[in-house]
């Protein structure tokens, strides 16, 4: 098989996996929360139906908006999906590993957030503006924590390429014996993941209270297929973060070759890992109230310090 065809096949497979798995994760978290509240809850497949329904609905666009408003859902969806292609899911080789590394991943996600912030302001409603300004605070604080935590890992693996990091970790090649930097970075990245995907205790995706929203306030003006794309992109972002956490910190079981059995096992293990993480998020959401808006900075400060400690530990332990 020529490398180009192989690469194309990998891209296709990864796109399919990410797109199918992401609504399921959202549904799974909702289901866990419902069960914890002694409710039956909607089916875990409800988000698929919601997205399908939204695609059939006619979108309504405010007359005061500019080109940014209709363009944002596509930019957001495309950038999140591209970011997803930089993260190994069931196979340690990432489809786009020739073209980007961890830093590209972080800024592809930031690109989507940036446009979403602009779109929130675009319609000129008070809620959109509030959501945008809050998202800007959160995004600017998560970014350094995210970069540092990933650097802590990159240093241990000696590469910023996620594929290489995962591959090496999976085969336990060249990994420092002490797991402290990893654990620090894991904690930091988990907090970042909660903040970036708008989960409790930073944001509440289930709220109907416009005044408390962050992510939901920015997208209040969206409807129809635009909203479908945004919801799907939000699910994708969750999938990207969970894949990142699962595979960077516990890559075992991931397919390291292109053998069909290895890929089969890889797919199964991947599904179990991210479902486990989704359940964990669901449980956490049942245990905590949302933080006051200005306490979010404290939480993200903790994430940053943890990531920094991870980085320091690496140097201390090495010498």
């Amino acid at each position, binding site marked *: 098989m020529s490398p180009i065809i192989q690469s194309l096949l990998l891209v296709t497979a990864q796109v399919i996996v990410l797109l199918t798995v992401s609504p399921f994760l959202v549904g799974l978290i909702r289901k866990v929360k419902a069960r914890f509240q*002694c409710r039956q809850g909607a089916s875990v497949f409800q988000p698929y139906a919601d997205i399908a329904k939204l695609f059939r609905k006619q979108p309504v666009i405010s007359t005061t908006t500019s080109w940014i408003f209709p363009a944002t859902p596509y930019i957001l969806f495309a950038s999140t999906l591209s970011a997803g292609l930089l993260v190994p899911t069931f196979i340690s080789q990432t489809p786009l590993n020739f073209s980007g590394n961890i830093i590209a991943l972080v800024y592809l996600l930031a690109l989507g957030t940036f446009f979403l912030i602009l779109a929130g302001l675009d319609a000129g409603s*008070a809620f959109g503006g509030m959501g945008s300004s809050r998202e800007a605070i959160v995004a600017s604080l998560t970014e350094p924590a995210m970069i540092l935590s990933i650097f802590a890992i990159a240093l241990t693996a000696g590469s910023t390429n996620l594929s290489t990091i995962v591959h090496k970790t999976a085969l336990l090649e060249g990994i420092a014996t002490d797991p402290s930097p990893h654990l620090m970075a894991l904690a930091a990245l988990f907090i970042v993941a909660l903040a970036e995907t708008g989960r409790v205790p930073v944001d509440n995706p*289930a709220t109907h209270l*416009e*005044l*408390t929203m962050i992510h939901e306030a920015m997208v209040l003006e969206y409807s129809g297929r635009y909203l479908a794309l945004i919801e799907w992109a939000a699910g994708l972002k969750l999938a990207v973060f969970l894949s990142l956490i699962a595979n960077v910190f516990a890559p075992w079981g991931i397919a390291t070759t292109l053998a069909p059995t290895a890929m089969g096992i890889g797919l199964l293990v991947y599904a179990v890992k991210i479902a486990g993480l989704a359940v964990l998020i669901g449980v956490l*959401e*049942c245990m905590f109230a949302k933080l*006051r808006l200005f*306490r979010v900075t404290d939480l993200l400060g903790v994430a940053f310090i943890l990531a920094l400690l991870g980085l320091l530990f690496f140097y201390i332990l090495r010498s």
Partner: protein
Amino acid sequence: MAESRSCDEVLKAAFPSIVQKDEVQKEFSHFLVSKDLLPAITRYLHTQPGLHGRLTLLWAVDNRPTRNTYGLHYLFTLEPSHRWMLLSAELAGNDRLFPSITPHIHAAQWYEREIRDMFGLIPQGHPDLRRLVRHEHWPKGTHPLKKDFLWDHVLGRQQGEHHFRRIEGEGVFEVPVGPIHAGIIEPGHFRFSVAGEPIMQLELHHFWTHRGVEKLFEQQTLTAAVPLAERVSGDTTIGHSLAYCQAVESLLHLEVPRRGRYLRSLFLELERLHNHLGDVGAICNDTAYALPHAHCSRMKEQIMQLNDRLTGSRFLRGVTRVGGVAIDLTAAQLAEIVAEMDRIEQDFSELESIIAHNASLIDRLETTGVLTERTAWDHAVVGVVGRASGLDQDLRRDRPFAAYDELPVKVVNYRYGDVRARMRVRMDEIHESMRLVREVRLKIPQGPVAGEPSRVAQTGEWALSAVEGWRGEILYMVTAGENGTIQRCKVRDPSFVNWPAIQWAVIGNIIPDFPLINKSFNLSYAGNDL
């Protein structure tokens, strides 16, 4: 009694020109005052240490058909003795001006604006004469409670714009919220002025769904208007119908049998329970802590289903009637209620300890939306909100009605005035209500549950009545008309006095905390807008 007599003497000594009326109603002192004296005398009542009067109700009556006057009535509660003191003034002939007492008594602010909208009487010296109930699109000169305004008159529409108070400056933004909201709640408009996230000012613009309840009362007969009273505020069926019935009963000199009074207390407590349970859950839910919400909703549902089994109505509609209650409960049903209480209380106590031990939740509730005792007093705040701000008041203890003279109530009181205090008041009252329900079962006597009226009310006779509903004091003033009709019925839901206070509780808080503060007040939009 001696103490209250001396209060009368103090007032008469300070204002020799006022006339004390010795009417049938012995439960309060009634003075006739000339309108020019109103600001001075109300200020004296409000600020004099021995009197400590709280403005409880302020209403106007259109007496033009009979006496060619408008009547103004100021009801004060003297806090030390919980005694009522009523001041009445008249505007004769074409006089449409009356002096505003708002500059000294903030609590009068909305009452006076309401009187202006409903009767076209103008409170001179009122700091804020914008329309309150009549939105700007109501045609000029529309004053629905005037006797010459037809109840089925269809209003036209005019162009008009409401002017909000503005704060201007660099970085100050206005955030308009409502009247349409994302959740399923009633319509209300909130206008915030913010600098970043902290709130500098909140202004309410409510009264979007005026139904003309007080006008509708005037089309009913005394004994037939109970269903209307039940629907003034959908969540306070018993509270409103009971207050209305008590006023009518005192007009008809009707004694409610003891068993009827016990059952009234029982149903009032059941209503308090399902609303408080819902509120505790909803407060937690607004911090995204959904677990207590799910459980509280279940417990609330259990009580509403119990209501349904007992009375055929989840909201206890059709239970109260003039003279008593419409349904009697068997001993087995009383036992069923108590058994349900035991089950729910066990679950609730468990939930309470989960809530109390959740640091992330308590962090959200503490110091959020503080209503100081001073502000609460100035605005004459009532009910749960008042008791959370250190105002020690509960009509069930202070002016016992129904069977509360034989069922002493332990009044819950917290000082801090934050969201947590308001939640704690509700939690403690849930336990207290359950205790009362059990006590009703033990003490309830046998006998009839309702009495029949033996007398017709004379035209112009009037009566006041007060009930401690789950939200707070509900007041009714009913004046009898000819042939058993209603000439005037003044309704006051606790929401009407507590809404303005929320504007002060939010100052300095951040916008995302507002829904939580609002939920902890949980005021009615419909009961506010009659």
